[in-house]
C-alpha cells in the first residue's frame, strides 16, 4: 500500500493522457493498416481499443508506445508532442502480449530493469521491486527465473514491471490472451483494481468484447483501420453508431427497415405461445424454433419464420422455457420501444 501513495500520477503535466490526430500507417506496399485515427484518452482512464484482428488496434498501441512511427499524424502524451521519439524517451510502459520477460534475469531483476538503466541505487531498486511484486502477490519468489513460473504468474510479473517505473500511462497488448478462462476472470478484476488504486491511465487492447465491457471506462471500436465509435460500454451497447458496432458488441438481430437497419437485442425478445395477440406497443413474429442452446441461466433460441429467410435470435431465462424443443411453433414478442434504428 506504500506503493500506492508514491505512484499517484503527478498533476504537473497538462493535457489529456493521450491525444492522437490523423494517424495513418501502412506496412510495405500493402494495404493501409490505419486510415486516419483521431482519439483522446483522458487522465486515469481505463481505456480499451477493441476490434477484430487486423483492425489496427495493436498498431495504434504501438504508435502510442513509440515502437513504430506513423506515416502521417501526430501523437501527444500529456500535452507533449512525442511523435518522433523512440520508446525509451516516452513516459510509457508496456505489458506485452507474450509478457517479454528477460529469461536470463530473476523476477527481481526483471522488475528492477528500468531502474537499473536509470541508475537508481541497488538498495532502492530492491525495495521498490519488492513492493511492486507484492502488489501482484509474488514477493516471495523474486529470486526465481521466468521459466520457473506459470503463465498467470509471468503475466503478473509483467504487470509489476510496467507499474514499478511509475509511468503516467501503461499500454497493455492483449495481456490475458494466453490464460485460461478462470484465470482470465481473476486477472480482469486484479487489473481493474490496480488501475483504480494507482490512478495510472491504462490503454488496453483486446478483441474480446466481454472483457472490454467489464473492465473499461471507455472503449474505442476499431474496424479496418478506422475508429467506428468511442464511448462508455453502456453507450456502445445501447446506442451503437453502426451495424458493425452492434454486431461486434453483444449479440444482435439486425434487420433492414426502409432505408436503414434496425437493431433488436436478443434479450429484449420473449417467447409466447403460438397465436399470441400482441398488446399495444408490442410487435410479434410468428415462427418455429430452429435451434435451442442451453447456456445455464439463459437459453438461446433461433426462431425462423414460415415465409421469410430472416431468423430471430432470442435469449430468455432458462426457467421460462422448460420443455421447449426444435420445430415448436411460437410467437416471438418484443416491445416497440426496444427497437433501435441504427444510424446510417
Amino acid at each position, binding site marked *: 500500500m506504500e506503493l500506492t501513495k508514491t505512484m499517484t500520477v503527478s498533476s504537473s503535466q497538462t493535457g489529456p493522457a493521450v491525444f492522437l490526430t490523423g494517424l495513418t500507417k501502412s506496412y510495405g506496399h500493402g494495404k493501409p493498416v490505419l486510415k486516419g485515427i483521431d482519439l483522446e484518452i483522458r487522465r486515469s482512464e481505463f481505456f480499451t481499443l477493441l476490434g477484430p484482428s487486423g483492425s489496427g488496434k495493436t498498431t495504434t498501441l504501438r504508435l502510442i*508506445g513509440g515502437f513504430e512511427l506513423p506515416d502521417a499524424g501526430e501523437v501527444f502524451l500529456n500535452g507533449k508532442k512525442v511523435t518522433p521519439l523512440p*520508446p*525509451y524517451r516516452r513516459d510509457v510502459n508496456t505489458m506485452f502480449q*507474450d509478457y517479454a520477460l528477460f529469461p536470463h534475469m530473476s523476477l527481481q531483476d526483471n522488475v528492477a*530493469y528500468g531502474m537499473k*538503466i536509470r541508475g537508481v541505487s541497488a538498495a532502492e531498486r530492491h525495495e521498490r521491486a519488492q513492493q511492486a511484486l507484492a502488489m501482484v502477490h509474488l514477493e516471495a519468489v523474486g529470486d526465481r527465473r521466468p521459466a520457473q513460473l506459470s503463465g498467470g504468474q509471468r503475466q503478473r510479473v509483467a504487470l509489476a514491471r510496467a507499474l514499478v517505473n511509475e509511468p503516467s500511462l501503461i499500454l497493455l497488448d492483449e495481456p490475458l490472451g494466453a490464460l485460461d478462462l478462470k484465470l482470465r476472470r481473476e486477472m480482469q478484476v486484479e487489473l481493474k483494481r490496480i488501475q483504480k488504486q494507482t490512478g495510472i491511465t491504462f490503454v488496453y487492447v483486446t478483441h474480446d468484447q466481454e472483457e472490454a465491457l467489464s473492465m473499461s471506462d471507455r472503449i474505442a471500436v476499431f474496424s479496418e483501420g478506422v475508429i467506428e465509435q468511442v464511448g462508455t460500454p453502456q453507450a456502445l451497447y445501447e446506442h451503437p453508431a453502426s451495424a458493425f458496432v452492434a454486431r461486434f458488441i453483444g449479440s444482435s438481430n439486425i434487420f433492414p427497415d426502409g432505408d436503414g437497419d434496425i437493431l433488436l437485442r436478443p434479450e429484449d425478445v420473449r417467447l409466447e405461445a403460438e397465436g399470441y395477440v400482441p398488446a399495444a406497443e408490442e410487435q410479434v413474429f410468428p415462427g418455429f424454433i430452429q435451434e435451442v442452446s442451453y447456456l445455464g441461466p439463459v437459453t438461446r433460441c433461433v426462431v425462423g419464420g414460415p415465409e421469410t429467410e430472416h431468423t430471430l435470435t432470442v435469449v430468455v431465462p432458462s426457467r421460462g422455457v422448460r420443455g421447449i424443443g426444435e420445430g415448436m411453433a411460437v410467437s416471438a414478442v418484443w416491445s416497440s420501444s426496444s427497437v433501435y434504428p441504427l444510424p446510417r
Partner: protein
Amino acid sequence: MTGGRKLLGHVALLLPPFGWLTVFYLGSLFILLLSAFWQVDSMSGEMIHEWTLDNFRVLVTDETYRIIAERTIGIAALVTVTDIILAWPLAYVIARKVGPRMKLFLLVLVALPLWSSMLARIYAWRLILGHDGVLNWFLRSAGLPEQSFAFTNVALWIVFTYLWLPFMLMPLISAIERIPASLLDAAGDMGATPFQTFRTVIFPLAIPGMAAGSVFTFAVTLGEYVTPMLVGGAGSEFIGNVVYSNVGVSGNIPFAAAFSMILLVVIGAYMLVARRFGAFDGA
C-alpha cells in the same frame, strides 16, 4: 512379454553403433591412454611396456613443450575472441536487419567457402600473405610499408580466424534470431537505449551461440596441425605438429600419446565450460 521384446528390439538397434563406438573409438582412446605411460628404447626403437611417468615429466619440465602448449592454447583463444568480434556485426545484420531473400543470399555467401577444399583455401592465404603476395602488391602500390606476416604466428592467427569464422557466424546468427523481438521492445520501453539493450539483453542471450561457435574456433584450433604446417613458420609449431612428428618421423608413439592426452584434457575441460554456457542447448 511385449515389454521384453521391445527392449530386445531397442538393444538390437543400438548394438551396431554402440559396438562400433566402443571398439574403435573408446578402444583406441584407451590404448592411447595406456601407451602414454610406456616408453620407446632410444637405441632400438622398440616399445618398452613398463609403466613410467617419464613422458609427462619431459612435457612438464622441458620448456620447449611448455611454449608449444602455450602457443597452441593462446592462438586458439585469440582466434576465438577475434572471430566473436568479427562475427557480431554480420550475424546481427543477417539475423535482424535484412529481409528473408537477402538473408538467404548472405547465408549462402557465408557458407560458400566451406564448399571448397580447406587445403586450397589455406594455400590461397600463402599467396596473399607471401613476401611477393597480393597483400604486399596492394601495400606497395598504395605507398605503404610492406608486411612480413608470412610464416609467422600472425599468419596463423589470420588464417585460423578466416577458416573458423563461418562456424562462429552460424550459431551466433541462430542465437540472435531466437531472441524474441518483444524483449528488445521491452528493454526500450523501460528506458534502455539501443546500446544498453544490446549490452543487457541481446549479448547475454546470445552467449550460448558464442559458446557453440567457440567449440570450433577454440577446440578445433587446439587440435589442428595442417594449418601451422602450411602457413606457420619454424616458431609456429602446435601440439598437433609435435604429435604428428613423433608418430611419423621419430616413431615415439608413447610421447605423442602423452602430449595428446594433455590436449584431450584441455579440450574436455573446455567442453564442460562451453556446456555451462549453453553451447549444446537446442541448436
